[in-house]
């Protein structure tokens, strides 16, 4: 998705879309997390965390398998939040402490595509 728009009520999160946090695949989200600084991760985390309940209330009114583009972008932002939370809440660094190289731990989809 190349657009930048979010649903109107979440337009204050638009800067994070512009910074490239709305990503469609797990690999892209891992790469973004691991190439960000703790300052960037923390800023993103602090901004989106308080919005999670509001985001879910908004998205749950829409059909999951047919989300409008701007709503899908919003959901993708929360997936990046899951990544950022690991850095901010647990590791105090972008990547896993003493972890296996994520490039050697590759997603695949035996049951059809999961991004």
């Amino acid at each position, binding site marked *: 998705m190349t657009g930048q728009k979010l649903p109107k009520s979440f337009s204050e999160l638009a800067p994070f879309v512009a910074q490239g946090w709305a990503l469609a695949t797990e690999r892209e989200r891992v790469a973004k997390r691991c190439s960000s600084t703790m300052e960037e991760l923390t800023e993103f985390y602090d901004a989106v965390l308080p919005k999670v309940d509001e985001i879910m209330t908004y998205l749950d009114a829409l059909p999951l398998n047919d989300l409008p583009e701007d709503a899908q972008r919003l959901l993708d932002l929360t997936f990046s939040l899951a990544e950022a939370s690991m850095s901010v809440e647990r590791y*105090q660094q972008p990547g896993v402490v003493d972890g296996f190289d994520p490039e050697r731990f590759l997603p*695949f989809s*035996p049951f059809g595509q999961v991004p």
Partner: protein
Amino acid sequence: MDVAVDGNGKRMETDYGKRWTQDYPELGTDPVPVASRLTQEYFDRERDTIFSKSWLNVGREEQIAETGDFFVQDIAVCKASVLLVRGKDGEIRGFHNVCTHRASKLVWGGSGCKRTFTCKFHGWTFDESGQLVGVPDEDGFYCLDKSENGLVRVATEVWNGFIFVNLDPNPKESLQEYLGEWGERLADYPFQGRTTCYAYQGEINANWKLCVSAFNEGYHVPFVHPMSAPETFRSKKNLFCRPIWVKLYPRHQTYSFYANPDSKMTALEALSAKYGPIVSSGPLGCPPGANPAGDPDWALDANVVFPNFFVDVANDWYFTYNFWPIAPDRTFYQVKSYFVPPKTASERFAHEYGRVLLRDVLLEDVETIEHTQLGLASGVRSHYILQDSEILIRHHLKTVENHVENRV
């Protein structure tokens, strides 16, 4: 009430002081030889006595739900490639993935849906039941009977939606017999409804047995997962993640992990828990077959099918590991976590949170395995010193040894 002593000599009371190894006196309590079991010679014997003769999990039936759906599973240790196909009659069949003309690999990997499989080399064509149905320029052959040159079958059976193959042309027992009491206990766990799958794969530069033994004990948890799971699986009552239940079957194993009911969730974990399953969601609504001890402080069970397959069941989800030997010091792994398909965005979010947390925890586990391989390869230590919580490692190595030495 028993006593556990922490690394600083501090004594703590524990409810989890049972000595499981005493229930299995045949295992003994001595150090266990391991370095001698990482050689090419031992690996070849494992191939001949274990991987060529055991029922091996290759996937789930939902992967090939429709007629003609197929996937290929290579079994490198046996130099085998197996083609799994759903037939017109609904049956799942396994075939050696080898053309019967000049023995070329028939399907070059992956998965998909086909009514026929055509060899890239000379166009011999087989249907979804393995019959040879097309031979280009058939008149040029001498006495070719197509009905006798279908694909070579591999014994294939399904238990609770899990597809297993056995490379022995005449398996000495059925899959049901092989799984035995272990399978009976998990017969009613709701695997069928959990069809959303998040999966990872790759190679580990370590022996397959070291991969198995990184995941069937809890003793490592405080040291390997201090930041990702600081108190999820431990508390003052159970400092060292001792099992809440252990059962060793003749070949298979179960180890129930403790969950700390007072574990503090992180901010996002707490939000995620409102919307979907978390790692240790407790025994509430505990599915049949899970939490055999009925302990209210239960997280999940590691259920290990000999030789190389884990089915770890939690309350609302489960995950599996397959460890495929490639060489004495190389293993291909697949990790899959399964959830009930999300109906809402918030459920999908909770899955993503669980997927990311499990992935990062596993990155911590997998990293230890290559260090163990390197340490053992140095030759300084020949044996493991195993404590009671590591009883499944003792049992797994013993079961391997029994096969290799033809005692089974």
